[in-house]
Every structure is written in structure tokens, then in C-alpha cells.
């Protein structure tokens, strides 16, 4: 290890510029085993780059059951995200940090100028966190953030012929793409097919109409309350040349599967770029599933009674272990995807949480960071 690596070791993994991390590394010698950030964030919650944080600046209603949340990120957040990407947001609810991912609806250049990002959240009937975000979140609230991520992005420059196919809140990653296209000024042949129950529940309806009037997009709204559900036949009718277009689609699982089938049938699957709602985590109360061990990629089928630790050992993964009775926390790993259940209490844990593999079992397919 070089002297520089050794010097920077305490702040390895902390986001920040080279210079600030040198200051941090120097100051960490006197705050060890903590970082200077651990003291600074007591003065201002945003003064820490140990974990990305942000402060809610505004919560603005968009429709009756949705709101745009503007967040000012703290130290270490990089604004060079791509339109279409999502961020993770952790909110403190009843003492517990609850995490979900939402598409960024802000546009990167505007974000960098104003030092804020925005997400638009629709309150789901059973969505415990989404309802809280829409109805209970107050400006000034401090949230945790996970860096922007996702492959569902618009290339620059965009292709000449485009189709955006969205349903419900699936329009949220697209709005960021449209805002970026509008700012850049170039015009391409873009069609937006958006399906929603009725006019009132269309997110960004005025803005979408404006984009249409400006000639940015050819807007085709499908109100399912009046016209019925969007299916392959009706899409054929709305956009006859869909097969010639590079398509970005976002919506519920059924909607994406329908589109996937259409593109598969024509053998042009590579033209379809999809984003599914992050909230899909298998049927509630699922028992067992395929457990994937992310780092090595090994997989195994586990039933609802086999612990994840046993499943990993059976699959030949080098699992961290300890007491095997749920008391020592030696076997705790990050749940990257899916849902697992605590065999002692029945409590379910979802992605973004660290779980004790010795007392939890798969509740549907899941991926562990091991």
C-alpha cells in the first residue's frame, strides 16, 4: 500500500473532491474512529459525505394523489445524472429509515444550476411510503439518498425516430427526458403514448400538452376509463409505425410484458428499452424463491423454511456466519433485491436493508450482496 492510499484509508468510500478528502483524512486522525463528518452533520445534517443526504425544499401537488418533491442534496452528491435515471430515497418513518427508488423528474442541467433534484411520487393504495411522501412530508425534512442509477436513459443525441410508451406514473422518467430534449432544442420525430385512468390523473398534463403544442412530441393520451385498457391492437392503431422506432417504455409489469411480447413477435426486442416499477417484489406472503448471491452470481432454489445462510452454504458460497441463532449479527448482509422473511417473527425485509441470513428465508426471488 502506498503512503497516499494509507493516508486516505479512513475516508475511502466517502464522496467528495480530492482536496476535501485530504482535509477529511487529515482531520480524521484526531476524530478517529469517526470522521469529521460525524461531528459536522450534528451542526447541519447536510454537512456529511459519509452517506448521501438531502433536505426537502418543496412538496408540490401534481395531481390529487401525487406530488413533486424537490430535494437539495448535501455534500458528495454529483449532479451529472442522465435523464431517465432514478435515485434511492430513505425517509425516517416511526424511527426507521425506509427506502424506495423513484425516477428523477428534474432535468440535469437545471439541477446542476439550482443544486436541487426532483422526484414525482404517486401515492399507491398500499404504498405505505409513497402515501407518506405525498401527504406527510414537510419541507425541511432530511432524507438519505442513494446516488442516481439505472440504464434506462436517453442517448445524446437521441435517435431520429422515437416512441415513449408509458402508463400511470411510468411517465416520470420520461418527463425528465422530454425536459432535457426541450432544453437542448433539437427536434426529432417523437411520439408519446401515455395511458392513465382519466384526464385528472395524468401527471404533468399541462406540460405534456405544451410540449405537444411546441412540436416536441406527438402526444397520444389513452384514457383507460373511457377508451379501455391499452393493448397491442390499440397501440398498433395509435402508432402504426411503432416497429420503426426506438422505444422507451415504463409502467406496471403487465404493460411492459405486453410491449415485450409485441417487440419479440417482430424480432426487434433490441429497440425496446424498459423500466419496470421498482415496487414489484413478488406476491405478498411468498414462500421461498431463487436466491442469487450477487458477487459470485451463484443461484439456488430455497424453500420458505430454509435459512438464507443454509441456502448459501448449500450453493457453495462462502457465507459469513456466527451463532446461527440470530443473536450475534456476524452473518448480516445487504439484501440487494427482493424480499426475505424473519423466521422468528414473520417480519418481512425488503431491498436496501441488511438482513441476518441465519434467521431469514426467501420470500420470493431475492439477491444478496455476498
Amino acid at each position: 500500500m502506498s503512503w497516499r492510499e494509507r493516508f486516505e484509508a479512513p475516508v475511502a468510500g466517502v464522496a467528495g473532491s480530492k482536496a476535501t478528502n485530504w482535509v477529511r483524512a487529515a482531520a480524521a486522525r484526531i476524530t478517529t474512529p469517526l470522521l469529521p463528518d460525524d461531528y459536522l452533520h450534528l451542526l447541519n445534517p447536510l454537512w456529511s459525505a459519509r452517506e448521501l443526504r438531502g433536505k426537502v425544499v418543496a412538496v408540490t401537488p401534481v395531481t390529487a394523489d401525487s406530488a413533486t418533491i424537490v430535494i437539495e442534496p448535501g455534500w458528495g452528491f454529483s449532479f451529472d445524472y442522465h435523464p431517465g435515471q432514478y435515485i434511492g430515497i430513505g425517509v425516517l418513518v416511526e424511527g426507521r429509515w425506509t427506502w424506495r427508488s423513484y425516477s428523477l423528474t428534474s432535468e440535469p442541467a437545471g439541477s446542476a444550476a439550482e443544486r436541487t433534484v426532483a422526484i414525482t411520487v404517486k401515492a399507491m393504495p398500499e404504498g405505505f411510503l409513497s402515501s407518506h411522501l405525498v401527504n406527510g412530508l414537510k419541507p425541511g425534512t432530511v432524507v438519505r439518498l442513494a446516488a442516481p442509477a439505472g440504464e434506462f436513459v436517453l442517448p445524446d443525441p437521441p435517435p431520429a425516430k422515437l416512441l415513449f410508451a408509458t402508463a400511470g406514473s411510468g411517465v416520470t422518467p420520461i418527463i425528465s427526458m422530454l425536459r432535457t430534449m426541450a432544453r437542448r432544442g433539437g427536434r426529432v420525430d417523437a411520439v408519446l403514448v401515455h395511458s392513465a385512468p382519466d384526464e385528472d390523473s395524468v401527471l404533468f398534463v399541462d406540460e405534456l400538452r405544451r410540449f405537444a403544442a411546441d412540436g416536441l412530441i406527438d402526444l397520444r393520451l389513452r384514457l383507460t376509463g373511457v377508451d379501455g385498457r391499452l393493448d397491442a391492437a390499440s397501440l398498433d392503431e395509435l402508432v402504426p409505425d411503432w416497429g420503426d422506432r426506438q422505444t422507451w417504455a415504463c409502467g406496471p409489469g403487465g404493460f411492459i410484458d405486453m410491449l415485450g411480447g409485441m417487440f419479440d413477435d417482430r424480432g426487434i426486442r433490441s429497440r425496446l428499452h424498459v423500466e419496470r416499477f421498482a415496487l414489484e417484489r413478488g406476491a405478498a406472503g411468498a414462500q421461498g424463491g431463487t436466491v442469487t448471491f450477487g458477487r459470485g452470481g451463484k443461484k439456488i432454489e430455497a424453500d420458505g423454511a430454509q435459512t438464507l445462510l443454509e441456502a448459501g452454504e448449500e450453493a457453495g458460497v462462502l457465507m459469513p456466519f456466527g451463532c446461527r441463532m440470530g443473536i450475534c449479527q456476524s452473518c448480516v448482509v445487504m439484501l440487494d433485491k427482493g424480499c426475505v422473511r424473519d423466521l422468528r417473527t414473520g417480519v418481512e425485509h425488503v431491498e436496501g436493508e441488511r438482513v441476518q441470513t441465519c434467521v431469514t428465508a426467501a420470500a420470493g426471488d431475492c439477491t444478496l450482496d455476498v
Partner: protein
Amino acid sequence: MAIADIPEYAHLTGADVEALGAELDAIRADIEADRGERDARYLRNTIRLQRGLEFTGRMLTMGASRRSLWWAGAGTLGVAKIIENMELGHNVMHGQWDWMNDPEVHSTSWEWDNTGPSAHWKHTHNYIHHKYTNVLGMDDDVGYGLLRVTRDQRWRPFYLGNIAYNTLLAVFFEYGVAAQHLELGKKRKTPEAKAALKRDLADVGRKIGRQVGKDYVLAPAISGVLNRSSRAARKTAGANLLANVIRNLWTNAVIFCGHFPDGAEKFTKADMDNETQGQWYLRQMLGSANFRCGPTLAFMSGNLSYQIEHHLFPDLPSNRLAEISVRVRALCEKYDLPYTTGSFPVQYAKSWRTIAKLSLPNKYLKDTADDAPETASERRFRADGEPRLVSSVDQRTGRRRGLKSAIADNRERRRERASA
């Protein structure tokens, strides 16, 4: 011989032990369901208090030239270090706050202000000590490979120094913690074992280096520069040393009160075979000891004044142990089990008494390994050749008669013999 058959020793049937286990499971479920904002606030306030005290202590020890302020600085820093080690470090690393899903107060990421690396400590403490609590030959916390704390450890001339070792251990406790995971007395033959030791030694060395660098090099240097005097630098180093010693003495005392006072039992490996969850619970109850306290003493001990409750539920938040103790005491009453507690000075004195006594060879000791204040076994109830008592119910009162009554009977018999 230590306890080899827990249900027999406790005078409970297998069904009793399972029923007791179910009642304890219910306590866990109740607390888990009730955890929330109030608990999170308690933790955040504790962190703020600790960081504030630490900052104040550092400022005083770096800037203060007056003698009274020097003492105040060392004392404040000592208190800050105690809170950091006990209420924060120990409890966070047990996963008591993992439910908050907060990466900054999570068992997987917490590093404490102690010379022992957190990862090592989680292995020796969370796993080995908490799973194999007080099992001779498995739980290294029984004497830490240094002290003779039970008659089941064979006497060697080395133990004549029992009191001296414990004094040194208390003063330099943090280094004892750092060394514990290394198991320096163990022979390592395979290349893997040797490589593992080398890695662990490097980890401990790095951690000690950082801690020593902070308290005895960097802080004094800053103080020397700020005050433009080398005397100030020496005084800062001295104050930091005192703060560390205060912390060491206190944490050592609290920890010794947990398993070494009279009545905290030891167990044999035989008892571990096919142990059920109920039997594990019972072993934790019989092997641990509390001390009585008010809220301040409880806080300063990291709530380890509720050692019995902590050992039953090592991963439930420390601020809930007081209320849990009410229910655990009621269970002890119901199942007629002893609930070992006493005042802090008495419990600590009992630990020292045992350490002093056991520095001597057995021939100078009155009691047997089956019936001594610090260790007992199920054989203590067979001494008179009487049939052993298993879970009887008092015909008159309808109360279960268990270990507590049996101990009282034993004492009664002994008194009668002595007077006869």
C-alpha cells in the same frame, strides 16, 4: 463441577423450560412490535450527548492550564469514552439499533473508540460469549484466559497473582479487549492459522496505532502548538491517559458485575449438546447477574446493569431493558428461579472476593466445586443422598417449587447441620 444439566439444576421439567422460553419469546415480540420513534430519539440524543461531551472534553484537555479545568477535562473525556463504549459501541454492535436501517448506527459499520477492532470484538463477544455464555472451555470471558474465577479451573501457582492480574487488567482493560480475539496462548500449527494470526495482529496494531496516535501524539501536539508550550502538550497527554484509565476501570467493573458475582453460574460443555432455545434462555438467566441502579447508573453502564435481560435479548434496544426486567423478574417468581442482583458495590466486591479466594489452591477453600458461592452444579442438591427435586408444585400454595426454593432448603439444611 459446573452445571451439566440445566433443567435438573433449575428443578424444572422439559415442558417448564419450553413454557418459560415461550414467555420470553413473547416479551421479545412485544418489544419488537413497539420499537419506534421514541427509541430512535433516545439513540440520537445519546449520540448528540456523547459527541458533545467528547468535544468539550477535548477542548478542555487541550486548552486548560488550570488544575481544576484539567481534572474537569479528563473527567469529561472519560465520561464521553464510557458512553461511547457502553451505551453506543457495545449496544450498536449487538445490532440493537439495526432495526432503524440507519447505515451510520448499524452493527455492520460501527467502529468504536477502543483499541480492539470492532470486527474482532463482534466475534469474541457477540458470537462466542453470547452463544456459549459461561461454558467452561468455550466462553473465553470466563477468566479471559488470565484469571481464575471458578473452582472448575484447576489451580496453578500462576493464579497466586490473581489479584495483581485483575488490577492490571482493569487499568489497561482496552488492551485486554484488543488482545482477547488474538488468543495468544493458543498454539497455531497450520499455515492458514498462522496467516490468520498475522492478519489479526496487523488489524489490532493498526487500531492501537490510530488510538494512541490520537490521544498521545496528535492531541498533545495540537495542544502544544496552540498553547506554545511543551508543558501543555504533556498535560494534554496526561489528561487523555487519565480519561482512558477512567473508562477502563469503569467498563471493567461493569463487565465483572455481569458474570462474576456470587450466584452467576458456570456450565460444562455437556450442557451445550442439543440445547433448545428454552435451555439457552435458562442458561443466560442463571449465568448472568444484575446490579440495582437508577437511570443515571443504568445509562453509564450501557444498561448492562440489566445484564440478565441483555443476555436474554442481546439485540433488543438497551433503553427497553428496564421495562423488560420487570417482566423477567415476574417470570423468575413464577418459575421459582433466582434473579441474581445486588447493589453495584456489593456485586463488584463479590467479584473481587472470588478472584482473591481463588488465587489460593483448593485445599485452603472451604466449599466444593459443586456448592460454592461462585460456582455450583446440580450435584449440590444430591449431597445428602436425598432424591433430587424436579419441578414440584407446592400443594398448599399452588406455586411451582424450583431452584430458588431448593437453594433456600439447602441453606436451611446446612444451617441445621452447623448448629447440630
